[in-house]
């Protein structure tokens, strides 16, 4: 009972932080704009330039950061619970790089020009394919090391293909966009990107709705869970598909942003009593919060040209990853 109260408090705290950070995000840009005037122009639908900056640049960027970050955080929590592996996350088991590959194929070779949703569909298909490959390579009861190694191989392969395809793409600008797909960026996203992101994201979120209990059962081990009525085969497919939907959609718009899916569930797990069902919503919120914060940092850093947001998340995430490995090493010895 006590931890349930803690969870609602946690959600409340995360919600307030998100509201505050979102407001900060609307106030942050390369140019200072008068907020009151901007709001006035936005709500009156007038042609004012401040309203334009607020509603067409900063608002979509804020929303995309929150949604994409939430998907990455949730994807990490789902994968870690499903595979009962603390290092499973969209970035490490191939979903994100597979999604980038799928998105690159559809975008630069004309499919996305034919219909808008081709781009996220490409991302989703790529994410699913890469995840399944890793899963099949590593085997069902893979140890941490095997899974990570399979992930490394698939990641390297997918990113090499991204790089190769961008070199072969007909657009003269494609080569310069390699960094964007590998590190991720939210620069210049518009409401068009929001519409690209939304359908797959909502579908994926709906698919994991009320799956928390089943994941809780899974913590007792697969056999026990199965004896308690969990259809493991269906569960795996359902969650793989859901993660592909949300991560594929997010990466199609932002590129592969690293470490959010790994770090966020780990940070929050001790706060929710190590219960997967209680981890999902906070992880989504935490992911959104982390990506939005990183994106604000990116906008504030004085640099020639904007720094990719994945640089910031990796700067936070990579040391955390190392710490995690050291922690495990100590546990094992």
């Amino acid at each position: 009972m006590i931890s349930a109260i803690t969870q609602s408090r946690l959600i409340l705290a995360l919600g307030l932080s998100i509201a505050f950070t979102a407001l900060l995000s609307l106030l942050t840009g390369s140019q200072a704009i008068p907020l009151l005037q901007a709001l006035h122009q936005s709500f009156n639908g007038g042609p004012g330039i401040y309203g334009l900056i607020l509603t067409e640049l900063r608002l979509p960027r804020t929303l995309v950061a929150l949604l994409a970050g939430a998907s990455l955080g949730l994807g990490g929590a789902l994968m870690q619970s499903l595979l009962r592996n603390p290092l499973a996350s969209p970035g490490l088991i191939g979903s994100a790089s597979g999604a980038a590959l799928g998105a690159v194929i559809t975008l630069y070779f004309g499919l996305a020009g034919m219909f808008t949703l081709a781009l996220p569909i490409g991302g989703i298909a790529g994410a699913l394919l890469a995840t399944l490959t890793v899963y099949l390579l590593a085997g069902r009861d893979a140890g941490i090391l095997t899974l990570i190694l399979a992930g490394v191989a698939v990641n390297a392969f997918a990113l090499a293909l991204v790089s190769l395809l961008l070199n072969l793409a007909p657009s003269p600008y494609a080569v310069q966009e390699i960094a964007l797909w590998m590190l991720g960026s939210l620069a210049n996203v518009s409401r068009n990107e929001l519409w690209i992101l939304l359908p797959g994201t909502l579908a994926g979120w709906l698919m994991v709705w009320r799956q928390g209990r089943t994941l809780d059962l899974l913590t007792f081990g697969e056999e026990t869970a199965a004896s308690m009525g969990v259809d493991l085969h269906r569960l795996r497919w359902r969650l793989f598909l859901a993660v592909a939907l949300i991560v594929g959609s997010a990466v199609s718009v932002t590129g592969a942003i690293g470490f959010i899916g790994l770090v966020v569930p780990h940070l929050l797990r001790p706060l929710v009593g190590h219960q997967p069902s209680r981890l999902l919503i906070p992880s989504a919120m935490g992911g959104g919060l982390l990506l939005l914060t990183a994106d604000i940092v990116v906008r504030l850093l004085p640099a020639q040209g904007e720094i990719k947001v994945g640089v910031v998340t990796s700067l936070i995430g990579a040391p955390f990853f190392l710490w995690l490995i050291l922690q495990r090493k100590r546990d094992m010895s």
Partner: protein
Amino acid sequence: MQAKAIALLLILLTAPAAAAGPPQRVVSVNLCTDQLLLMLADPRQVASVSYLSRERQSSFVAEQAAGYPLNHARTEEVIGHRPDLVLAAPYTNPRLLATLEKLGFVIEKLPLGYTLEGIIKDIRRLAARLGQTQRGEVLIEQMHHRLQHNDAPTGLLSPKALFYQPRGYTSGANTLQNEALRLAGWRNPAAEQGVEGYVAVDLEQVILWQPDTLFTSTYKDRSISLAERQLEHPALKRLLAGIPMLEIPYKYWICPGPMLVEAVALLRKAREERDAR
């Protein structure tokens, strides 16, 4: 060792030619010098032009260039043409030029101006170097004539225009695009705000400059990339109130030359259409 010997042999072969009269075997390694060369030289003086001179979107003299051997600004190719004059731009690969210089080839680096005066200076300088002073003056005269032919409406309340390219690049002061905009009676807010050269600017900045119109140029056929998608950002569409961006052929203003007046003519037409609205 063998390469050195061949190089030496080449120097011996070419050195006498360089000494007397106007050059007879000119090799240009840069799109901008290609174009001025083809406009000014006698066809028999041209030994080779760069491969870019045949690109129809970038080169104003693409058809004319079709008859000449091409080079890719590689040392061996250039030497192979046994030039008595090599034409280069200020930003031509310094390693290539250093090697050529060491081997005793004569190099002319054109400054490539970004104003009308600069263009005229470039033309005069190259024309003199080629022994074609008369052709140079004719070219300059034609340019002046076309510019005065359709006079620019100017004033403090001139409308604002930006040159806006994929990835958000724009041209500030000291660029041909800025000069063309000025000659056509547009104000360039980027140059007025101290932007210099060809640089990327932030979308928020572009909106705050409130340009009345945006001009753009493609140097390849339109393709799909995130860079090009940026030109279709809904914020830009709303800023321009649905008026589409105007495409100016790249070949008119990527290099200094008389073709700049073609860009000016299009920009003036756009200006008149805007005033009529």
